[in-house]
């Protein structure tokens, strides 16, 4: 066997899929850049427990297909392996981002002040519920093109998921430095985040469908719904 040693670490460092090497006590011995970002959304303990749970019975490597979601990260498989008692590694496989196939229906897009639609939906919410809402919005968000009817439906359903929640916080802001590509063009992102002490998830599927039709990236979590809306102006 060839004895030349090749240093693969740089390749691993820059791999787009998270890779972590734990010690037997759960300490992190190594993690690549992608894993570093992942740790912003999930605890070390949770990932270590996951690693142990999917470890092969004896020395070696085992790949398990599963569906994992941490915030906007989603993975379709993991490989867990160990060659001695001291180290164990886990690699996550990024799920491919599904590109929306629905074309943008430009004739339905009308330049709109998103705050209007949001406030009208809050008024609608208030006719049905007595929960208190806190709204933090950026009045400087410029008008941009929205399918007003469909977007209102999306807002209604999203807010309805919080119909029995307490301390509902709604935040509308422009995401600085983040972009999305729509029809080959870079667009800024407006993020609407609704957070409370809990929420219903009975309409998650419908919310998902409408968001996809509207080219809106949706993050559904136990207590939060985030909509990332492309700021289309032309």
């Amino acid at each position, binding site marked *: 066997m060839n004895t030349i040693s090749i240093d693969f670490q740089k390749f691993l460092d820059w791999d787009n899929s998270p890779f972590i090497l734990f010690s037997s006590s759960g300490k992190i011995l190594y993690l690549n850049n992608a894993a570093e970002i992942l740790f912003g959304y999930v605890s070390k303990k949770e990932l270590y427990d996951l690693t142990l749970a999917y470890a092969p019975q004896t020395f070696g490597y085992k790949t398990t297909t599963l569906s994992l979601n941490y915030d906007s990260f989603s993975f379709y498989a993991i490989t867990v392996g160990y060659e001695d008692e001291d180290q164990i590694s886990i690699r996550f496989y990024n799920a491919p981002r599904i590109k929306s196939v629905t074309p943008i229906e430009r004739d339905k897009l009308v330049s709109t002040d998103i705050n209007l*639609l949001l406030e009208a939906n809050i*008024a609608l919410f208030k*006719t049905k519920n007595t929960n208190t809402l806190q709204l933090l919005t950026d009045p400087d968000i410029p008008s941009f093109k929205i399918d007003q*009817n469909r977007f209102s439906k999306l807002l209604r359903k999203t807010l309805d998921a919080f119909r029995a929640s307490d301390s509902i916080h709604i935040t509308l802001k422009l995401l600085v430095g983040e972009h999305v590509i729509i029809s080959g063009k870079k667009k800024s992102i407006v993020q609407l985040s609704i957070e409370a002490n809990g929420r219903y998830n009975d309409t998650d599927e419908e919310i998902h469908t409408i968001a996809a039709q509207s080219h809106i990236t949706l993050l559904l979590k136990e207590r939060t719904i985030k909509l990332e809306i492309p700021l289309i102006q032309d």
Partner: protein
Amino acid sequence: MEAFFTKSEQVQSIIKGFNLTKTLFVSSIIIGEPNIGKKSLVRYLFPEAPLVSGINQEEVEAALLEYDELIITDFEKLSNQESLNLDNKRIIATANYVGNQQTIDTLFAFIYMMPSFKERPEDTAYIRDLFIKEALSDLMIEESDFSAEEIPLNLNHNSKTLKRSIYKHLMNYSMDEKSIQESIYHYILKHLEGNNGYKEYLGLYEKPLIEAGLKKFGSQLQLSQVLGINRNTLRKKIHEHNID
């Protein structure tokens, strides 16, 4: 512009929602019991918009092709709801009930539920006073010392029964001796039969006489003196007519 009065927070929120979306192309529907002011509210918010009724399906279809802004009343009466295209138009619909929840949910961005008068006591008092004014002028009754709060209001069918209970009360309140005799005459003409008529219909006169007397004079003793009958006779009659 016609005014629309409401103190109900829910209705105020509906108005707020509409005021915000007035210039947008969204479809909205107001759902609530008949006769609670849905149409008046929409007319107040959109005084210029063309209006069609769901009773006439063809008219609705034609209007949808012609206008970008349209009021559709009696939406529940439309049998072809699924096939309507309300996209990119300003549609304001009203309906007495939901019908197919799924369809309404798909068609409309804003679905407002309007509370009935039973849930809006302050609005009821306002509309009661409006009706009283109208009734006083319609019936040509001089405003006198009656109190609006005393009118027993029937809200089972919202403004319709509310209006009727006011007219009825005011008619009763303003009747003179001749009118009372006339009503009794027509009532008896319609119902009198059998072989015990005298006793049966005596209650028409005796019951209100004793009830009003008790209210006015408080005690049976005093009333018997005012009526000039024996106290025992009065007691017997109270029992006979089940008066508390």
